[in-house]
């Protein structure tokens, strides 16, 4: 009966990469993972929305995050994170061209912008704490710190990955054949960015 190796029997045109769909396993896995992450951040965002005005027990009237938001400051850090997405695509683009120096520059820029964002977040957290909005104050603040903290951890993971790529590039191990690796790290990075686009509007800008 008809059996054949993959190399010889390809019954549809789109299977010509060897995988049934012609797409990369890893990239597909990353996209499935990002789809799943939507449910994770959705849960955290919904929790915050549900709790955003809950100040805790009656007369004490504790402060909630919306009382102490510093919109101009957050806008700047949102802009920084947004621009890190640009440097990320530029890094990938440079690697595709085989321009290793530019790749390294843009990778480092991306990680740095991410670091600036994280620094801004740490500053914001400490300011909030000073103004009496602590993690344990009330449901609103617990939900706020958890949501933005989860996002911050994601950004930090991304920075770790970017730095790993940077080191690999310095050691000469990042070549145009690794574009997919960079692209996948980029997908993760952009995802963290779009989550922040959502958070910035829904959590910060839309009034309570």
């Amino acid at each position, binding site marked *: 009966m008809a059996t054949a*190796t*993959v*190399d010889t029997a390809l019954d549809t045109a789109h299977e010509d*990469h*060897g*995988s049934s*769909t*012609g*797409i*990369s*396993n890893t*990239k*597909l896995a990353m*996209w*499935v993972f*990002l*789809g*799943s*992450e*939507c*449910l994770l951040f*959705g*849960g955290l*965002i*919904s929790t915050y*929305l*549900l709790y955003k005005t809950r100040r805790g027990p009656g007369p004490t009237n504790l402060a909630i995050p919306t009382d102490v938001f510093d*919109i*101009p400051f957050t*806008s700047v850090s*949102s*802009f920084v994170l*947004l*621009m890190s*997405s*640009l440097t*990320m*695509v*530029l890094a990938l*683009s440079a690697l*595709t061209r085989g321009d290793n120096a530019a790749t390294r520059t843009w990778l480092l820029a991306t990680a740095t912008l991410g670091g600036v964002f994280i620094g801004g977040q740490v500053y914001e957290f400490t300011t909030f704490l000073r103004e009496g909005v602590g993690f344990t104050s009330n449901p609103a603040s617990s939900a706020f710190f958890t949501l933005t903290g989860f996002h911050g951890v994601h950004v930090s993971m991304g920075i770790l990955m970017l730095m790993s790529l940077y080191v690999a590039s310095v050691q000469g191990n990042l070549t*145009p*054949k*690794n*574009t*997919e690796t960079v*692209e996948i790290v*980029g997908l993760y990075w*952009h*995802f963290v*960015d*779009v989550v922040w*686009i*959502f958070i*910035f*509007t*829904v959590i910060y*800008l*839309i*009034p309570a």
Partner: protein
Amino acid sequence: MSETVTETPAPEAEDHSHDHPSDWAYIKIALVLGVLTGLETFTYFETVLDWGDFLIPSLLFMMVIKFWLVATWFMHLKFDNSIFSRMFVGGLVLAVGVYVIALATFEFWER
């Protein structure tokens, strides 16, 4: 005979890199994103412009545009296999649907 266990795809970069946008296109996208962020921030200063009832819809609209720009251009969904879009949009739509309904059971939208 021998063959590999994983019918490993060749790296895809060379296959679709040619239809990737140029760096300049990326920069233009980023400019649009920056301008939108600026507009969004402007809404915070109500003295500049009174958005009235349009505030929330326009904020959401700008958010969707930004989201869409990053996903389609920076994440290449526009150029890549539609399976990726389906996986991501599937999760996104499911998340929005489920959580909107969940918040509805708390009568969140009636506030």
